[in-house]
């Protein structure tokens, strides 16, 4: 299907879906209007004692329909009518409309918060849908913030929704966040995590933070209670727990590391739960009295494949020299807005690897010609992606030696590397070229370099190099009919 036809199909699907939604809204409106014109049973009974006009008036604190909609949670001691009214008067901001934000926003909308804000500058992609359950196939290509709100509105139209189709930045953070009572960090990068924490400290908002990767998840409620900078009564902020960002190279995204849908889903649902607990108890409101006993901050660890999947860890309080929340902190709203804090620089950027000489790198197209010409008959192609990638699709004839095995120490030898050469066929001649391929062309350079350092190039007798751009380039230039993961 060419891109234009695909887009037309998507638009058609989107239109028909929106029409259904419109019908639902009309039906709902009709129901509500009908309710207004009908005398309620109670007003019949009371008609004799009271003037008709006022007796028809619904005088209870929630709307009539809301008693039905929220009835199942209303009767819980932890919510009750007070808690429901607090939820209804609360404004919650979900930053990130992805794997965490989708379930979190859905449950908050369902629970009847007053205002739900959604911040995300990205658009829906097909690879999101296995976990970002509020989006759908027809909405691929539209803004995630809009898509999530569309889903939530279908779930509960009583909530007021505010979409921000842009990323949170030091410049817009104050304007966006100040209108809310509680913030959920559902983003996927350290830069946004530090920024969200800082603005929450500056504006005094509790922050419900979660993250997930592969089959693990983490959850922590920060800046709770949200005392002013320097107050020891406040809960720790993200910088108290992680004063220094991890090296950029050690940060693995869901795109690189993979993620299991229900794992990130569990964490997003837990974020909604923690937010409901905070709001129903009255946090963030003027009448907030604080819990009976002092809060011990805790970090919840979830490991899907562990025999004990949930573990709660007692955490430290505020750090006395914290950059953001301590008495000595120089962090101000003004400083944040003027951009004197460079979050990208603070967290570091990964520099693309470029350690091979141009002559040691062949393009995917060139490698295809080399194969076809038969010049390098019997050359070796090492695919250093992890086994899962290799099992999905590979170049014919490639040998899979995952990158991680090249990082393994050998117990038997002093130099520690000879054990990795077991893959090298014994009958291979000393000038057989070795090509290395990986996913996008970084690891392949590292491995090619390592093989040279081990002397496998026999002082230039044997060619060792990599395929530039990896399997991604192979798909793009040579074989479009193969999956790329």
């Amino acid at each position: 299907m060419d891109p234009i036809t695909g887009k037309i199909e998507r638009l058609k699907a989107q239109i028909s879906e929106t029409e259904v939604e419109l019908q639902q809204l009309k039906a709902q409106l009709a129901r509500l209007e009908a309710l207004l014109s009908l005398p309620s049973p109670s007003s019949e009974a009371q008609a004799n004692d009271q003037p008709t006009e006022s007796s028809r008036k619904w005088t209870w604190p929630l709307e009539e329909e809301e008693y039905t909609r929220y009835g199942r949670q209303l009767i819980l001691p932890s919510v009750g009518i007070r808690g429901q009214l607090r939820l209804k008067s609360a404004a919650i901001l979900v930053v990130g409309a992805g794997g965490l934000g989708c379930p979190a926003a859905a449950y908050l909308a369902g629970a009847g918060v007053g205002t739900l804000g959604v911040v995300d500058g990205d658009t829906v992609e097909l690879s999101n849908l296995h976990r970002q359950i509020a989006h759908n196939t027809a909405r691929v290509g539209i803004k995630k913030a809009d898509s999530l709100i569309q889903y939530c509105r279908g779930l509960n139209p009583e909530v007021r929704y505010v979409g921000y189709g842009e990323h949170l930045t030091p410049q817009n953070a104050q304007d966006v966040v100040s209108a809310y009572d509680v913030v959920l960090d559902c983003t996927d990068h350290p830069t946004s995590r530090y920024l969200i924490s800082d603005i929450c400290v500056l504006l005094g908002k509790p922050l419900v933070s979660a993250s997930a990767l592969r089959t693990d998840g983490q959850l922590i409620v920060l800046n709770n209670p949200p005392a002013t900078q320097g107050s020891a009564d406040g809960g720790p902020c993200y910088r108290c727990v992680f004063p220094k960002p991890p090296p950029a190279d050690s940060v693995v995204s869901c795109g690189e590391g993979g993620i299991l849908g229900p794992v990130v889903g569990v964490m997003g649902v837990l974020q909604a739960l923690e937010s409901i607990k905070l709001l129903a108890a009255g946090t963030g409101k003027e009448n907030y009295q604080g819990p009976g006993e002092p809060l011990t901050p805790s970090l919840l660890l979830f490991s899907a494949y562990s025999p004990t999947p949930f573990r709660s860890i007692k955490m430290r309080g505020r750090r006395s020299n914290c950059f953001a929340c301590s008495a000595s902190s120089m962090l101000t709203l003004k400083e944040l807005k003027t951009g004197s804090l460079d979050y990208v620089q603070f967290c570091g950027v990964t520099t693309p690897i470029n350690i091979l000489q141009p002559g040691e790198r062949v393009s995917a197209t060139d490698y295809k010609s080399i194969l076809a010409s038969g010049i390098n008959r019997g050359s070796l192609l090492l695919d250093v992606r992890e086994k899962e990638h290799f099992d999905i699709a590979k170049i014919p004839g490639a040998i899979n030696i995952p990158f991680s095995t090249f990082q393994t120490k050998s117990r038997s030898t002093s130099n520690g590397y000879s054990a990795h050469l077991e893959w090298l066929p014994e009958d291979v001649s000393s000038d057989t070229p070795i090509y290395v391929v990986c996913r996008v062309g970084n690891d392949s350079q590292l491995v090619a370099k390592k093989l040279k350092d081990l002397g496998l190039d026999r002082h230039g007798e044997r060619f060792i190099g990599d395929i530039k751009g990896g399997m991604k380039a192979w798909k793009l230039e040579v074989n479009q009919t193969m999956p790329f993961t």
Partner: protein
Amino acid sequence: MTEVMATTTETTVTDNTSKNDDTPTLSVIVEFTGGLEMLFSDQRRHVLSIPTTDKSGKPVTVAYLIEYLCENTMRDTRKELFILDDHLRPGILVLINDADWELEGEETYEIQNGDNILFVSTLHGG
């Protein structure tokens, strides 16, 4: 608790009389999560016997354990993913018996027999 203390004292005494063959050890459970397990043979839980004292005869601390893990348990050459500038790399939390190590004295915490030490790499995905 008393039993543990007694054992520790007793083994320390043994250390003075015997030589290296019979180095007294502490049994600890070390766990890795958040991706760190990949540096340790893809194994999340390790039951280890580590010496009770360091070279200078002082009781072993978490700092000692970190170095010990790098030298003896790690099967990956990318040491920098665990230690950076002689300290634990930023972005790794240490939890001693389910409490943040900052509540226990961080690197200076003296390891007790039976301790559970958990290393957690922070996740950022969402």
